[in-house]
């Protein structure tokens, strides 16, 4: 039997950006909070002096240990799903701070159009523009409403940015100036300008100068050390929860953090339609505990948020046959149809590509959102075109060879040494849509270390995914040509999703909206039918926007924190349900 602990005001499951933000806000508000994190209690000093490409980029030290739990994956409803067995194909954060510690830092807000994508598409192009199999949904919140939450997250994170000439006006400037410009970025920007596009420096969670955030936490200036993405920052210069919201929460005695605490169930009272707490295992001892709470917050990344609801039998599981049910519906994200583009090999230029930072880069948004006319195009929406200078290690740089170079042997050696620093990649990061045939449920075969079923992803591309990627590759090619590369190689757009869950951009399944028939949570991320259960994170995205997800996750977490406080004061549903015309 699980040992029952004393009841608290709020229990939080998972402490990345989402759980960290709710932690800090609840702690500041004086609530009695327990936060449960399955991973180790990592500190800044765990990431000092460990600049090691093999350990982090190739062996994924910082990612979830899959021996206990992974997901299974398939393309079609009638296929048998197979487990995603290695961390090469499955990159999910674990340990205190989660994936939010090893993120690169690329920071984009979603566009006003993207929050109202269904209504605006119908307004501009007519309902026929939306393919029949696509679940295209408005978010139940507008950009105008989101602005102040974006602003708050950006200030907490101290983001270093430059105003994108095409983006909507911001209420406040970026908290810190943009990162430095390298010769490669200059070349990209000049080429883009020659093509009448509007380049700008990407807003970055790697800070251009030392900064103190409104909670009093200091983030240092980035050293451009290159050991950034998939690593923790050596210098406390990458904005992450370990540098910001977690220390803020820990300053309060009413906040308690328990690590190695793996949550297995949300406890649920079906009669009252209330969550009563959670059940977790102390992974060091194997003991089970019941943590009762007035409010339960799930912030364990999209996979865990979905799986815990399913294992706990809360909400109705989506069924693709009947197209009814809501949990697991609209599973989406940027898989391998995103990040396709054009690679350029330069004979006369050698760039210092071993120098860099996670979000050091330049972009254009001319082909993002609805910034260009889609009347004659066979897709909806768009994305940013980016050139990033991550700063590559030697193993990674050895991959920089043209396609006709063999992948091993003397010629490979010769070419890889020659092109290691002469290769630039630009890519398009388009939005990713939801379809009736893409969803999450529990796998009938494969189990975790405690005997609970794994989460199963069923995901295949729609035509949109291939069409938009092809369009993006062509645009990238034009820029690369203008940049003067001697050899240009365009990425091949994959025909189908290959079950490789890299890059951490998977979302959906517990989506937000204003219609309970097509959404599981309202725009405070409060469950429609369980008032004291908030599901925070990318699980709320009805479809994936044309940019990286984290700023929107951060902003929504601030919105949810506001909602939780409101709920604790007044109780009840915080939003009024609206009926949309769209059928699920």
């Amino acid at each position, binding site marked *: 039997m699980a040992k029952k602990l004393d009841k608290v005001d709020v229990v939080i499951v998972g402490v990345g950006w989402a759980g960290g933000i709710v932690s800090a806000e609840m702690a500041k508000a004086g609530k009695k909070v327990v936060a449960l994190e399955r991973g180790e209690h990592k500190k800044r000093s765990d990431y000092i002096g460990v600049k090691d490409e093999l350990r982090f980029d190739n062996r994924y030290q910082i990612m979830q240990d899959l*021996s206990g739990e992974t997901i299974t994956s398939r393309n079609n409803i009638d296929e048998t799903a*197979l487990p995603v067995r290695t961390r*090469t194909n499955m990159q999910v954060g674990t340990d205190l701070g989660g994936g939010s510690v090893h993120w690169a830092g690329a920071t984009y807000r979603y566009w006003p159009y993207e929050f109202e994508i269904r209504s605006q598409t119908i307004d501009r192009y007519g309902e026929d523009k939306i393919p029949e199999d696509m679940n295209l949904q408005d978010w139940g919140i507008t950009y105008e409403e989101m602005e102040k939450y974006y602003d708050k997250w950006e200030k907490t994170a101290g983001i270093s940015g430059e105003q994108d000439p095409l983006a909507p006006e911001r209420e406040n400037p970026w908290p810190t100036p943009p990162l430095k410009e390298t010769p490669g970025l200059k070349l990209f920007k000049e080429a883009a300008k020659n093509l009448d596009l509007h380049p700008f420096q990407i807003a970055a969670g790697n800070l251009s100068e030392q900064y103190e955030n409104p909670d009093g936490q200091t983030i240092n200036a980035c050293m451009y*050390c290159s050991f950034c993405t998939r690593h923790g920052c050596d210098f406390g210069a990458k904005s992450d929860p370990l540098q910001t919201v977690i220390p803020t929460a820990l300053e309060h005695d009413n906040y308690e953090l328990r690590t190695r605490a793996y949550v297995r169930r949300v406890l649920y009272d079906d009669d009252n339609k209330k969550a009563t707490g959670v059940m977790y295992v102390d992974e060091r001892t194997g003991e089970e505990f019941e943590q009762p709470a007035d409010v339960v917050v799930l912030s364990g990344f999209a996979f865990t948020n979905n799986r815990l609801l399913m294992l706990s039998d809360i909400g109705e599981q989506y069924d693709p046959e009947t197209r009814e049910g809501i949990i697991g519906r609209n599973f989406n994200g940027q898989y391998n149809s995103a990040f396709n583009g054009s690679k350029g090999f330069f004979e006369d230029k*050698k*760039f210092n590509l071993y120098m860099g930072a996670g979000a050091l880069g330049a972009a254009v948004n001319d082909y993002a959102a609805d910034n260009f006319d889609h009347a004659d195009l066979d897709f909806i929406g768009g994305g940013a075109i980016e050139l990033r200078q991550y*700063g590559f290690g030697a193993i990674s740089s050895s991959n920089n060879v043209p396609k006709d170079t063999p992948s091993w*042997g*003397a010629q490979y050696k010769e070419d890889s040494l020659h092109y290691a*620093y002469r290769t630039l990649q630009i890519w398009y990061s388009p939005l990713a849509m939801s379809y009736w045939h893409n969803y999450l449920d529990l796998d009938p075969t494969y189990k975790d270390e405690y005997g609970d079923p794994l989460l199963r992803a069923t995901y295949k591309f729609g035509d949109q995914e291939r069409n938009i990627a092809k369009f993006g590759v062509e645009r990238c090619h034009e820029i690369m040509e203008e940049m003067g590369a001697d050899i240009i190689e365009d990425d091949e757009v994959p025909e189908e999703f290959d079950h490789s869950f890299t890059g951490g951009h998977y979302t959906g399944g517990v989506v937000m909206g204003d219609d309970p028939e097509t959404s599981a949570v309202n725009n405070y991320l409060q469950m429609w039918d369980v008032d004291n259960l908030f599901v925070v994170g990318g699980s709320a995205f009805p479809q994936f926007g044309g940019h990286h997800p984290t700023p929107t996750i951060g902003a929504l977490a601030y919105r949810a924190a506001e909602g939780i406080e409101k709920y604790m004061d007044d109780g009840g549903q915080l939003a009024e349900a609206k009926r949309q015309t769209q059928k699920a």
Partner: protein
Amino acid sequence: MANNGPVNNKDKQANDKKDVSRRQFLKNSGYAAGGVVGGALLGGLISNPFQTEETAGTDENTQAKEPLQEARTFFSRSEDFQTLAAATERIYPENENGPGAIELGVPYFIDKQLAGFWGSNSRDYTKGPFDPKASDTHGFQSKLNRGEMFLVGLRRMQEVSQEQHEEEFFDLDGEAQDDILVSFESGDVGVTGMRSETFFELLRQTTIEGVYSDPAYGGNKDMQGWEMMEYPGPRMGWMDDIEAEDFVSKAPKSLRSYQGGGL
């Protein structure tokens, strides 16, 4: 390329850039042995090289420099290790650009990797059922762990070599070795419990990792892999250089010096 090794190697030693390492010796005797010295003799040479012919050219000094941290800790049969070494050398051969996989310590790097968590897939999902051939796109699906895959794969390479040439894989000339590697790479060889291309990719990737990972892991000997690529290794940061128009070339430093050395 590697078959004209002896000449190149001699030139190299004449230039006296490097110590006569055990691997260098191994490789030379391997080449010299091609078709001349039998497997048994070679085996004897390998288990104790410095007590045979080479002893003449081996003084106290060289022995003192013998890298004692290099010994097999995963592979038990030396034939497996020799096959591995020969294969890695074909994947990353010594040539005018610099040393190849053997001189860079790649076989020992792989041996160490397989002895650790990665070799036993202890942080991967390893529960059944398994069906390694069910799908082209689901990545690793083998019941075998990486260590077992290496053993099974390398032994299959030895078998194929015997079937086709009646010789050990490591005694074949480079072209014949390449042909066998290509047949694995293209998925044409039946291997128990996995796909041959999965094994080849594992071998290829691990070889490249051994060339370019920090010397802390036993490969990239003396940072020569990084030197060839002009990769500087881990540094504090590039704040002052990041805007430089020209390529900045610095002699590499390792994780050990980044961490301050010491102890």
